[in-house]
């Protein structure tokens, strides 16, 4: 690394070669970067590292799980904080039940979240808070199924996998107004 960079800097300093790569696509007429130090990497090298799961199911891993299987995972790894039935407790939010139209509203995975992918994505990256990323992909599928089942979104034996998860219809799917273009 150090060698490569030193050489690059010397070359730039001497003004001999521009290391920037000509861009195609968005910046076709932008000048090439005078400094271009990124090391090429492949998506395959990022397979275990990129945790982002999109609503369309992009990047969901292999594996599957049902709510029936997820109950044990949930009781062991989640219930102490989120309650035996997902009702929440002091310091930890409810995961199921509730409604956007009560006063005050109770916003939960079940009553509020527009996509099931977000549940898989968030639990895999951030839960439980004391040991994030400690669950296997199978456990994440199972416990995701269990939480969705607790709210009545899917049946107990519905098999959640990379094909079925994106098709799960969340109750508040139409509840959001995208103002990103404003």
């Amino acid at each position, binding site marked *: 690394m150090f060698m490569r960079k030193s050489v690059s800097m010397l070359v730039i300093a001497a003004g001999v070669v521009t290391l920037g790569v000509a861009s195609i696509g968005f910046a076709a007429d932008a000048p090439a970067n005078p400094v271009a130090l*990124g090391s090429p*990497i492949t998506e395959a090298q990022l397979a275990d590292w990129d945790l982002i799961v999109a609503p369309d199911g992009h990047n969901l891993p292999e594996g599957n799980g049902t709510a029936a299987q997820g109950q044990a995972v949930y009781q062991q790894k989640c219930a102490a904080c989120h309650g035996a039935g997902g009702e929440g407790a002091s310091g*930890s939010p409810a995961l199921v039940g509730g409604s956007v139209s009560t006063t005050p509203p109770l916003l939960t995975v079940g009553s509020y979240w527009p996509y099931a992918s977000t549940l898989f994505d968030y639990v895999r990256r951030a839960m439980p808070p004391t040991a*994030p990323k400690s669950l296997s992909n199978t456990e994440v599928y199972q416990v995701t199924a269990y939480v969705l089942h607790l709210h009545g979104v899917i049946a107990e034996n519905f098999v959640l996998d990379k094909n079925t998860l994106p098709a799960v219809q969340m109750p508040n799917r139409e509840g959001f107004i995208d103002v990103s273009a404003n």
Partner: protein
Amino acid sequence: MDTKNNPEYVAGNGLIHRRHLLGLGLAGIGSMAAGSALGADAGMLSIPAWSKAPGNGPSEYGAPSPFAANVKRLAGGPSATAPGSGVSRTPLHLLRGTITPNSLHFERHHSGVPAIDPAQHRFVIHGLVRQALSFSYEDLLAYPMVSQIYFLECSGNSGANTVATAGDTNAAAIHGLLSCAEWTGVRLSTLLAEAGVTDAAAWITATGADAASMGRSIPLSKALDDVMIALYQNGEPIRPEQGYPMRLFVPGWEGNVSVKWLTQIKVTDAPAHFRDETSKYTDLLPDGKSLQFTYPMGVKSVITSPSGQMKLLRQGIHEITGVAWTGHGAIRRVEISADGGRTWADAHIEAGQQHLALARFRLPWQWSGAPAILQSRATDSSNNVQPGRDSWMAAYNSANRYHYNAIQSWSVSAQGDVKNVYA
């Protein structure tokens, strides 16, 4: 009082024209202030002890005076269920000027501050690019950089004033999720150009290396505009609690999208709908629908002195001062009222970088000892005017705590006690 010393009142309840801040007629006003309060120490002056013995020598990293030890963040206690999670707030009422010292910049963590070794840290751009690239910290240090002063405000800032009863708290507790610093770093557009964004790209998703792997989606148009990968904060390497060794900085937008400990930018055709842009950081409306991706922070101002829980110790001239900011350009005007919004006067706004930065405003005020309600109202270069509390509340569900930018009211009692009120 002769006419030369007569302050030029410009609005009700004692507001004085801002030109009196600039030296004109200050003699008269100054003597009024002196007459009523200063002079308490009258008597012979003696040489103090610190002038008679050498003090400490230079140090490697400075610290505030022990006598200024009260100037600190308002930090919440540890969370039992979410270790490392929480906030600390900038003590706005104890600062003057516009730049937040690094040790006092507000914090919001979702799973604590990771202890990142920059030599091991990797920043990757991938997804809809011609060539995915990995950068080390050292790599980024070699790029051309830009320096800009920007405010950063949490989307939940001031949410305390959305609850039904006004809390008897101070400016830090209500508005302290707001800071302003000079950020230096590499333009994201430079690195995206190196990776070569493809035609299908429309969004980026940014993820941090903290234990929660906090992620947010940002439209590509903004990413190519003024977004930077910040490496320096007020000239020194950014602090761990601000994302060391690197953070995304998204000027003018809700703080949460300026992802700290930045490790991943995945270029995509659509937002990821992360938990922190669906479950959280969405703004519930009265009808139960929610606004999603409400990025820019609205035009806003707050009087930081006098402010909540302060006490005015004398009648006479006080400087009303505070900060104003907007995610839609620059602050053009700040008006002050001392009579609960019946009459208004223009405050003086200090010169300096105004675009997406804090503006400092000031106005002299003659306090007669009568009760007063102090308010400030900002207008920005896009002609947005800071709303009153009632109209803001009417626009959202009463449970919404995000993007509260309504006018702050501080009441001053006849005893001089300053209190947070809804007016």
